[in-house]
């Protein structure tokens, strides 16, 4: 029997980026908030200690800060004809764990999705006709650029993002991204300094007529004090960003931007090492009463709340909805149902160049240090005569040349022995790469549901992921790889190779922790699980916040848009929902 705890105004599940933003905004609005977090408390000095965080084996390879499959795994398959089996170790993507969530070990590339993403179906239909989208479940997100711009701005100023505006209120700015949607003001801090490889990349693609610009980065170019009064330090380009917590207070995370303020508030409480099992609904299924959780000793508690904010990693948000019977599960056969619908990923390829006599110093890096061009991203280029929609950014980002994971050799080099060693030694300083990060568009067959066989440590079904790269996205990626060939050739390197994405998503090699969809936002309850304010259509006192709300994935990292959606939802709750609890949009 669960022990019943006193009711709170809001119960937050998961204290990562979105949980921290919601908690900060709602405690400001006067609510009494408790956040329940499965993992441990984590902070810079104690857990990302600068004396030993630069440990590739511990954090980069053994993945100490990440969610461990023993805690929660998922099953996967490429299509419904296969039997899904558990990812016994996480490989292709690495969800976060503990306070700060994946925001602890993210790279910091901080993008805004475009107006053309938010209204993707209407804009593409207008330009190319509805037939162009046959087979794709692309849909508008139910929110417009003008509505969301302020929320993007809030997240960027919270973090102190370093970048160069490309479109200020409609005026294109030299040196910025000319394809971005108009922003109301520039970035809070100037771009990072560039190391050799991204500078060379920018020069090369500029000569080809493209438009490179500094990647907007949450690794800060300079010290910064955010609107909450929290100070961040200047990035030292140490090259231990991705998979690591920042020991230098230079990477924006919940720890470095919000928690120092939030944790001091009397109307906020964090409960760590406590795992929510489910959200409990009233018998009619239309109202969330409470959440049930276990502490680390396995003692069960029931925490009632006037509202429940689901702020876990996007995939876990979807699983929690399915376990709690919130919203109709998606059925890929009929195409009906919404929870688990429009699961998308990221469609990427890479180029690698080898030179003689260079010193690229690849260890000088940061998660978002580099240059990007969007000339072939989204709908920035004409698709009239192409057999796909979507696109990819092409970027040269130097996250750090940590040698267990990063020791490039030319194709054909043996993987061990004397020849391997000689080539490894020779090419470490002589190689650079660039990559494409492409859009991932929804199709009927890609979805999330509960696995019929495998369960977690508490006996609950694991999430089952059925995913393969759709033909549209493969065609897109190959088109962009062709452009990458042209770019690679222009470097006049000694040799080079461009990878090509193949069908058959493989769960083993790391690709991207940009899993999106499954509880998407929209204007139609028949095709979306949450409304434009990320409020459940079915259980209006539940809000589901995260990349789970993305109707599709764009060709860029999701966190900037996740942060914006968190502010957007928080504002709707604070200004609309609290005054008049209930559905904010009539179903």
């Amino acid at each position, binding site marked *: 029997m669960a022990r019943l705890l006193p009711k709170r105004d809001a119960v937050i599940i998961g204290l990562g980026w979105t949980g921290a933003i919601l908690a900060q905004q709602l405690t400001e609005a006067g609510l009494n908030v408790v956040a329940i977090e499965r993992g441990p*408390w984590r902070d810079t000095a104690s857990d990302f200690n600068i004396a030993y965080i630069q440990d590739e084996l511990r954090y980069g390879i053994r993945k100490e800060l990440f969610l461990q499959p*023993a805690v929660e795994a998922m099953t996967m398959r490429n299509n419904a004809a296969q039997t899904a*089996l558990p990812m016994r*170790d996480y490989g292709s993507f690495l969800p976060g764990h503990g306070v700060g969530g994946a925001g602890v070990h993210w790279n910091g590339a901080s993008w805004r999705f475009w107006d053309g993403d938010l209204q993707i179906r209407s804009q593409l239909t207008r330009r190319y006709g509805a037939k162009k989208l046959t087979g794709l479940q692309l849909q508008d997100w139910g929110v417009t650029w003008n509505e969301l711009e302020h929320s993007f701005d809030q997240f960027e100023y919270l973090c102190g993002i370093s970048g160069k505006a490309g479109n200020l209120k409609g005026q294109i700015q030299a040196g910025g991204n000319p394809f971005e949607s108009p922003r109301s003001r520039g970035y809070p801090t100037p771009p990072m300094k560039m190391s050799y490889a991204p500078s060379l990349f920018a020069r090369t693609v500029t000569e080809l007529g493209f438009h490179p610009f500094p990647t907007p980065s949450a690794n800060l170019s300079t010290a910064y004090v955010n609107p909450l009064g929290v100070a961040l330090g200047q990035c030292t380009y140490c090259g*231990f960003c991705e998979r690591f917590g920042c020991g230098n207070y230079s990477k924006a995370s919940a720890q470095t931007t919000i928690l120092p303020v939030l944790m001091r508030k009397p109307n906020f*409480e964090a409960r760590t090492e406590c795992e929510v099992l489910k959200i409990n609904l009233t018998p009619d299924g239309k109202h969330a009463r409470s959440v049930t959780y276990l502490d680390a000793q396995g003692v069960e508690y029931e925490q009632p709340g006037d509202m429940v904010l689901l702020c876990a990693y996007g995939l876990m948000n979807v699983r929690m909805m399915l376990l709690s019977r919130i919203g109709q599960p998606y059925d890929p056969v009929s195409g009906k149902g919404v929870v688990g619908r429009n699961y998308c990923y990221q469609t990427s390829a890479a180029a690698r160049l080898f030179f003689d006599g260079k010193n690229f*110093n690849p260890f000088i890096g940061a998660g978002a240090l580099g240059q990007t061009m969007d000339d072939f991203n989204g709908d920035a280029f004409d698709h009239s005569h192409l057999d796909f929609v979507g696109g990819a950014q092409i970027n040269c980002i130097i996250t750090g040349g940590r040698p267990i994971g990063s020791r490039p050799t030319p194709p054909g080099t043996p993987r061990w022995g004397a020849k391997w060693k000689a080539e490894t030694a020779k090419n470490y300083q002589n190689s650079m790469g660039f990559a494409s990060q492409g859009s991932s568009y929804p199709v009927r067959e890609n979805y999330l549901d509960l696995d019929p066989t495998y369960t977690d440590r508490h006996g609950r079904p694991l999430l089952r992921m059925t995913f393969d790269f759709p033909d549209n996205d493969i065609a897109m990626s190959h088109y962009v790889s062709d452009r990458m060939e042209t770019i690679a050739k222009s470097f006049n390197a000694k040799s080079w190779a461009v990878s090509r994405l193949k069908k058959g998503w493989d769960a083993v090699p790391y690709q991207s922790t940009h899993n999106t969809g499954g509880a998407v936002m929209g204007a139609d309850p028949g095709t979306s699980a949450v409304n434009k304010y990320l409020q459940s259509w079915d259980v209006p006192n539940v809000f589901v916040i995260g990349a789970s709300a993305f109707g599709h994935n764009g060709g860029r990292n999701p966190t900037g848009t996740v942060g914006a959606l968190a502010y957007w939802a928080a504002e709707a709750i604070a200004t609309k929902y609290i005054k008049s609890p209930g559905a904010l949009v009539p179903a």
Partner: protein
Amino acid sequence: MHTDARSLSRRRLLASVAAVPILAATADFFSASGRSISGQVPWSPFAGAPPRPVNPLGWYFFTPGEAAAVEAIVDRLIPADHLTPGGKDCGCAVFIDRQLAGSFGQANSLYTKAPFAVGLPIQGYQGDLTPAGRYRLGLRALADYTHGAYKKDFVQLSPAEQDAVLNGLDTGKIVLKLKPGFSTREFFELVLQNTMEGFFADPLYGGNRGMASWKMLGFPGARYDYRDHIDKHNVRYPRDPVSIYGEA
């Protein structure tokens, strides 16, 4: 580590609970392992979990025969030459031994629940053996193979014969007697991956002695501030590596 902070927050909580009797039920909760944090940013001096350097002497997991085989294997995967000492002298076998004796070897973080089915390559390793168990079975099968083919242990083969065996495992030409769900290829990949981890990881884990691989590459190791060099494009970084425990 967190003990001080935890007891501090427990005291704080009990104090606040005393004023609000209805919360009394929660007191038990906080004597358990969950942790309540409110009104403060938790802080305790000298908190942290620094890694513990391995003791380089002896074997913690391998039997003497296994250790000899693994030392011979890592010495062929990473042969001694003018660039670095061989894998054995770099400590790669010690590294693997300590990893197998620890949480990695025991698969503590992995999903190990049944049922175990033979999967597709895209689904990754699906066997029921821990990494330690895979080494134990794989090394035994390797010894069986070399005794069948050469009537010798792996360590007794000439370097050229050792390379031929390793090549056979790598290319699939040699198939060891393992078990369903654990292929020869998976065994070789595990050994190769762990050997490279040992060669390139911080020396505190037992491999990369003298930071040999880092010196070979020009990787500065645990340094964390390159602000003085980011603008120096195409200029070699002038400083030697340092390790987490200050080896320089």
